[in-house]
């Protein structure tokens, strides 16, 4: 894997995008290596999602060059499942319905622990289940680039933690390059190889996180990264809270 790791999955140079007179991306450069898990962090409305949409080709840059792999998939904040298709059909959406594809779809559902729900209608699934179907749909195509647009934001706290672990596991197994957009610092520190902070149209921080997985959120190294990132986002962490967590 190390040989291919050095190869790029995403390359952006001088990308600019503005809406009206608001410049959300101001000549941004970015390279993501194959298999690298990059988390894009930033306050709301800073253009995180715009960057992701640019990579998907759902938005057109005003200027600059964008290079992405052919095979890229996405999980949005909402599941965005087709209500008239059952879970399995949603997973293999847009693919010819061959035996092989069906088999792959079932395996993907199995991977997200929904093997028994393959005939369920999306409306009957819980929020976490629906989001897992969306994740299976994104993974079944074996993407070279997996784009995650705040996929855990609408989930309850416990489901979110479980989903984060699941994504971490599945990404470790399938090794796509990942760009995860979030504003949750803990999520970033838990999952990322590298955290980028986007503010005022530019990356103000590019922080490599070289910690073993699964990561312990009470580990001092993890906490240090957390404090750094919070400071970068303009949030002063509360020392008493920190010490409380440390002694927990």
């Amino acid at each position, binding site marked *: 894997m190390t040989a*291919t790791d050095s*190869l*790029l*999955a*995403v*390359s952006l140079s001088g990308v600019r995008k503005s809406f009206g007179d608001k410049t959300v991306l101001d000549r941004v450069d970015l390279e993501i290596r*194959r298999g690298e898990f990059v988390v894009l962090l930033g306050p709301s409305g800073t253009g995180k*999602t715009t960057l992701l949409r*640019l*990579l*998907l*080709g*759902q938005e*057109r840059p005003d200027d600059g*060059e*964008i*290079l*992405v*792999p*052919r*095979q890229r998939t996405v999980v949005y904040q909402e599941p965005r499942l087709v209500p008239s298709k059952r879970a399995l059909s949603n997973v293999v959406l847009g*693919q*010819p319905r*061959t*035996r*092989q*594809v069906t088999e792959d779809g079932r395996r993907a559902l199995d991977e997200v622990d929904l093997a028994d729900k393959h005939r369920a209608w999306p409306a009957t699934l819980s929020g976490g289940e629906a989001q897992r179907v969306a994740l299976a749909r994104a993974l079944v*195509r*074996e993407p*070279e680039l997996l784009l995650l647009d705040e996929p855990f934001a609408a989930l309850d706290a416990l489901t979110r933690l479980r989903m984060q672990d699941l994504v971490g596991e599945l990404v470790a197994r399938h090794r796509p390059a990942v760009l995860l957009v979030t504003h949750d610092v803990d999520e970033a520190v838990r999952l990322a190889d590298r955290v980028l902070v986007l503010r005022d149209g530019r990356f103000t921080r590019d922080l490599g996180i070289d910690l073993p997985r699964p990561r312990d959120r009470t580990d001092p190294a993890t906490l240090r990264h957390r404090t750094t990132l919070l400071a970068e986002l303009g949030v002063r962490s509360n020392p008493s809270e920190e010490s409380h967590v440390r002694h927990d």
Partner: protein
Amino acid sequence: MSTETSTEVRRVAVPGPARTAGSDLVRPVYRGTGRRSRRRSVPLRFSVPLLLIAVWWLGSATGWFSAQVLPGPPKVWSAFTELLQTGQLADYTLVSLQRAAAGVALGVAVGLVFGVLSGLTALGEELIDATMQINRAIPFLALVPLFIAWFGIDEKFKVLLIAVATVAPMYAYTYLGVRNVDRKLLEAARSFGLRGARLVFGTVLPTALPSLLMALRICLSISITGLIAAEQVGTREGIGYLVSLAQEYNRTDYMVLCVVLYAVLGLLFDAAVRVLERFAMPWRAGVAAR
């Protein structure tokens, strides 16, 4: 056959060892051409109707269409200016518009009230819906002789016929619009104490407005059909009367003029509602897929 396709798809999907460089990265393909310029959109929109008129003109000028079957645009235009000069056209249009307005107002009001009641409450749906479906199933043209027998041949019959013709589509679209209002939104509004008229006017109707305006457009075009049927009898004025007049004297130029007039009238109604749509829903401005 099908398994072959599948292996091919998979070969593309799975990153293989054959990839040696980052050169297989691609630029994203953008859907559509981005912003469409108005300079191209407007001429395109008018091109097909203009083409049809050109064919019509050319066909009649070269004698391709006999003048008895389809008079050319110049003849229709002169029929138009003739009616305009005598003042008949303005009078007829005004009278017809008044009838249509009264009929549509009545039909839309009844359809709106029934649609809201039926869409919002189970009791309303049980009481109203079946009857409205029956009404919808009856072609309103079948009611013409009966309505003449009941209401005579003067204004009352004409207005009521248009009202009956428009009540069914207004009801159906209102019902649909109200049913499609997000249940969760209604739940929230109710939990904050909104009831009755305040709930309907403050939350339900604004949310259902796109459907209601669509219904209005359909009602207005149906009203023209109603006019033609209603103005065949008991009147010496109106654009429906004009078409029966043309038939009586076998004046094809007047017949074609009537067709053109209905088309123009329909387009004007539509444009009016579109303008209304634009200004009545400021909250819909700049909606984008996010």
